[in-house]
């Protein structure tokens, strides 16, 4: 019986799927109080493993930059 181990397995699989598939979040919201638009939210976010990120051309230059910098002592 080792429930914590089973739990961590689920989390590992969860993260694995999230990093492999990546996730794009697009959210727009306006909060209106008494007829006055008070708060606006515009959110564009992406999370993925670097393999997926660079495959889709995000952080491409940054990734190359880091590799170049670390290659030179």
């Amino acid at each position, binding site marked *: 019986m080792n429930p914590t181990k089973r739990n961590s397995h689920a989390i590992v*699989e969860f993260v694995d799927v999230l990093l492999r598939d990546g996730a794009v979040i697009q*959210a*727009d919201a306006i909060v209106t109080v008494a007829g006055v638009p008070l708060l606006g939210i515009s959110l564009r976010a*992406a999370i993925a493993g670097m393999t997926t990120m660079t495959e*889709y051309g995000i952080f491409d230059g940054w990734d190359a930059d880091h590799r170049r910098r670390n290659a030179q002592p």
Partner: protein
Amino acid sequence: MSDPKPTRSQGDLAETLELLLDKGVVVNADIAVSVGDTELLGVELRAAIASFETAAEYGLDFPTGTDMERVTAAAGVDADDSKSVLERPDPPTTEGSE
């Protein structure tokens, strides 16, 4: 075989997430709290979450600075073919879209 209990719950979370990201989720909510005739509180929400592939297929907005040509190429979809699901409430200015 030696497991006394079926361990179905183990992959459930990951499977759910995979399905959720693959299909994508769109939330389109208009909430209005009114007392009498006056609208006290209103919330308008348009949100979507999907995997990179699904997001590219349906033309979701990637973060600014993303090369959309690379995205559509990587996802294997035509840019013109994308079926937009979210009507942007207020199209932001697209200056410096290099």
